[in-house]
């Protein structure tokens, strides 16, 4: 949408063409980018998608749209289209629900919030002024502090609004500093939040907590770490989901176009590193933080299957014997599957770049690797080197695609020489941009599984999709102050 608005603003009339089940999303995006009444023509989704396989198949759909396309460019603008008055949206600070009993009021509150698209589909805790005040006691930061705006509609995220959504999620006040730090990462100007919120690719979020606060608030980093039963893990994730819905004004099928939703859609993947059983320094220490600091690392990750960069288990467990080498081989094999996309990677497209890998090693595996002399850094280098493809094995199209990425400056300057050198006989062409694009965490129980996800190293709409923020302002815990 942004591109079409850009052209229309130059003074050249544009007709934006969209399938009918994306029209709400398109109108919302037009509003967000400054020409809410941009002319649009729809084509029926149920015909277009199945017929777009050939000219002959799609012909009836295209022919049927042509008169509307011409009309879109020629019909003079209506008075409504020429109008510049924005619709006034009043936001009452409080909402009153009246019923004959508390039970009836609670039911009415939940239904009202869901009908208005203010809930997640799960039961909510009413954010009464008293409850929100108790929640805000978990942070020393001012309720009026604005930490950023939330895509796609860029609603303002204040500490108070985050607290309101945290109450609704059933979080405890001592979790609030963690939730705020995660929202700080997501609303950071460098973070591409729009893509994970809105894309048909159905991406999701991984939120990893490091440092002493994790144990203080009772987070799970052991068996079942991605699952249910731990209030901190689950309600921190739910608070983030509700904050994103309400502050970003997000709703499935309207501007959240994740085609099949996401696994763990209400709570994301929220866990802490198992620092007690980690043979290496904790992840946040590897970034330069002190061990006593508490941090949150937020990453956009894939949801479904290896081909869509979704969660893959590399091995481990209690059923079959495993060796560290077998898991390493599975990790390398998974990275190499991204070769399928090598000729497609192009900045600005739906598949903009190679992936970053988010690898969660279960403690046994990490300990075994440590015994073999691996450090976090050596493991990153190993995965980078082992996933390279010999130049001689590349097809002409694959070689051309790497050359194009070099010519179009899609490969960072400090890696250009590496890639240029690899495009010679005897060269090894990397699939990862750099070794550091494997992000390694140690979490899970004993026994456990090692698993991983991935996501574009250069996302479509921002500079990054992985960011770490320090947790601060905590009042009810010793950590995170």
């Amino acid at each position, binding site marked *: 949408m*942004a*591109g079409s*608005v850009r*052209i*229309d*603003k130059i*003074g*050249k*009339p*544009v*007709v934006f*063409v*969209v399938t009918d089940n994306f029209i709400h*999303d398109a109108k919302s995006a037009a509003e967000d980018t*400054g020409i809410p*009444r*941009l*002319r649009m023509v729809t*084509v029926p989704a149920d015909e*277009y998608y199945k017929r*777009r396989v050939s000219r002959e198949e*799609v012909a009836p759909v*295209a*022919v049927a749209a*042509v008169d509307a*396309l011409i009309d879109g460019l*020629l019909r003079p603008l209506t008075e409504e289209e*020429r*109008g510049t*008055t*924005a619709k006034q949206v009043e*936001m009452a*600070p*409080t*909402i009153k629900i009246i019923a*004959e*009993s508390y039970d009836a009021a609670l039911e009415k509150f939940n239904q009202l919030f869901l009908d208005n698209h*203010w809930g997640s589909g799960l039961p909510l805790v009413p*954010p*009464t*002024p008293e409850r*929100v005040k108790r929640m805000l006691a978990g942070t020393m930061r001012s309720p009026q502090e604005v930490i950023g705006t939330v895509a796609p509609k*860029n*609603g*303002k995220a204040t500490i*108070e*609004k985050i607290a309101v*959504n945290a109450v*609704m999620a059933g979080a405890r006040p001592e979790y609030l500093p963690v939730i705020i730090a995660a929202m700080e990462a997501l609303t950071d100007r460098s973070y591409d939040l729009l893509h994970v919120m809105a894309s*048909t690719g159905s991406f999701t979020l991984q939120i990893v907590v490091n440092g002493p606060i994790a144990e203080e608030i009772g987070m799970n980093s052991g068996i079942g770490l991605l699952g249910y039963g731990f209030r901190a893990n689950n309600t921190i994730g739910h608070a983030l989901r*509700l904050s994103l819905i*309400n*502050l*970003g*004004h997000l709703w499935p099928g309207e501007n959240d176009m994740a085609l099949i939703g996401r696994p763990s859609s209400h709570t994301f993947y929220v866990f802490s590193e198992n620092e007690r059983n980690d043979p290496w320094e904790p992840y946040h220490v590897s970034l330069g933080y002190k061990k006593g600091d508490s941090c949150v690392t937020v990453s956009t990750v894939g949801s479904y299957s290896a081909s869509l960069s979704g969660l893959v288990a590399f091995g481990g467990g209690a059923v079959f014997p495993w060796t560290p080498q077998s898991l390493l081989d599975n990790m390398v094999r998974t990275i190499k599957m991204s070769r399928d996309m090598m000729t497609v990677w*192009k900045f*600005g*497209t*739906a598949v903009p770049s190679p992936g970053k890998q988010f690898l969660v090693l279960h403690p046994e595996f990490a300990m075994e690797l440590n015994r073999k002399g691996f450090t976090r850094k050596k493991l990153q280098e190993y995965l980078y080197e082992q996933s390279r493809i010999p130049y001689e094995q590349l097809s002409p199209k694959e070689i051309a695609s790497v050359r194009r990425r070099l010519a179009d400056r899609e490969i960072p300057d400090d890696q250009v020489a590496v890639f240029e050198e690899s495009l010679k006989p005897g060269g090894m062409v990397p699939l990862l941009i750099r070794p550091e694009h494997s992000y390694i965490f140690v979490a899970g129980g004993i026994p456990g599984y090692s698993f991983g996800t991935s996501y574009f190293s250069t996302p*479509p709409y921002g500079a990054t999709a992985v960011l770490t923020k320090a947790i601060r302002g905590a009042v009810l815990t010793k950590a995170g102050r």
Partner: protein
Amino acid sequence: MKGKRLWFLTTAVTAGFFMALSHVSPVHGEVTLEVLNPRGEIAPLPIGVPAPRLATLAGKTVGIYWNNKAGGSYFWDVAEAELKAKVPSAKFVRYDGPFDPGDARAAAMAKEVDAFFYGVGD
């Protein structure tokens, strides 16, 4: 006389009592649940007006922009042929690129055409 006054007083008090009763809420045990609004405030955006439309396509050059999502080029191949058949003197120029071509490329393309059809495959 005294009897009439007593009757009148009793009637007035009784009537007043029942009138007062009618102002009491008929629903006993009514609960009001007051909650804070969870929504983020959106700063009002300036409203842009779409560019004026063309009077005719005859003799004009129309750009067709596509972001290369699979199958869209087939759609535009057919649409372009049909448009040419309807307006033989119009020219159509095809462009492709990312979702958003950016300011510089948008300006460059806009110099070459009079109008645009723009699609991103959704």
